């Protein structure tokens, strides 16, 4: 099953429309899409505007492949649960996001080998045709990097700044 998810704040018609048309042409039936505020009404896909977190998790875990906007929650979940993921970033210039951070995130994570990215509709269409060959990337663990966790834990308990070790904690010994 292909699980499509585009987040909730703003429409993302470009992504949903390409997948809908692709599903129509290829006859693929095993697609479910969470489309948020997208105005395009899919004709060839099962879809829902929003999913409550438990439903989201269920769809995510049943999916063999994820196709999504470049949302960090979806990307982190795909890496953690070893799901192949194809991403198309939302563009602020097209009213799909409030700033261009998804474009920057997608480029950086693609360079790091974490995700496969389609930067426009034509590329998305090509990637969908190759979807069967999409592989999961290196699995991440359940938690943040140990250096971040340790830095936070120290600061929570002692007030010692992890990046300014010379600073004295603001309490009496």
């Amino acid at each position, binding site marked *: 099953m292909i699980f499509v998810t585009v987040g909730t704040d703003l429409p993302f018609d470009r992504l949903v429309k390409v997948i809908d048309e692709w599903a129509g042409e290829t006859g693929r039936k095993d697609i479910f899409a969470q489309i948020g505020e997208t105005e395009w009404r899919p004709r060839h896909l099962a879809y829902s505007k929003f999913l409550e977190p438990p439903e989201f998790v269920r769809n995510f875990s049943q999916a063999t492949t994820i196709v999504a906007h470049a949302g960090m929650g979806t*990307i982190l*979940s795909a890496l953690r649960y070893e799901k192949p993921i194809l991403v198309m970033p939302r563009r602020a210039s097209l009213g799909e996001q409030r700033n261009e951070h998804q474009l*920057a995130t997608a*480029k950086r994570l693609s360079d790091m080998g974490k995700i496969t990215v389609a930067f426009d509709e034509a590329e998305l269409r090509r990637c969908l045709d190759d979807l069967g060959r999409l592989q999961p990337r290196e699995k991440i663990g359940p938690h943040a990097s140990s250096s971040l966790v*340790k*830095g936070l834990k120290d600061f929570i*308990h002692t007030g010692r700044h992890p990046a300014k070790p010379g600073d004295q904690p603001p309490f009496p010994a």
Partner: protein
Amino acid sequence: MSTIPTGRRIRLAAISSGGGHWVQLQRLRPAFSDCDVTFLTVKEGYRADVGDCEFRVIPDANRSNKFKLLRTALVVFWQLFRLRPDVVISTGAAPGYFGIRAGKLLGARTIWVDSVANVETLSMSGHRVRPYADLWLTQWPHLAGPEGPFHTGSVL
């Protein structure tokens, strides 16, 4: 920055909006072990993620709606006033910004972990929260500077 009395567990409030901010906040949880944690976020459906920890729902908002922002600010301030946390930590966005402001006002130790999604520049909340965050972190080494934001790792 506050001093925490010894001999009792630290009260920690962990606050974020939904989606990626919430997923990232969850990935920091080992840092909160040994604390009494209250999670504050924008969807009741996330309650199942926190196990036995305390959980509060706050209204979501972003900068495109000033009325909702004000409502979120008031609810966050009120919730934190009642919780009296020793530490407030957030991964963003707008609700987290108000959480850090409220925490600072209430004398808590405050931690901002800017979202890993902000690769080229800190988020707007991340920039604005700077004066109120005792620990001000980015998850990208190339965004770190000697005066902050600082980098000690990432959720990846």
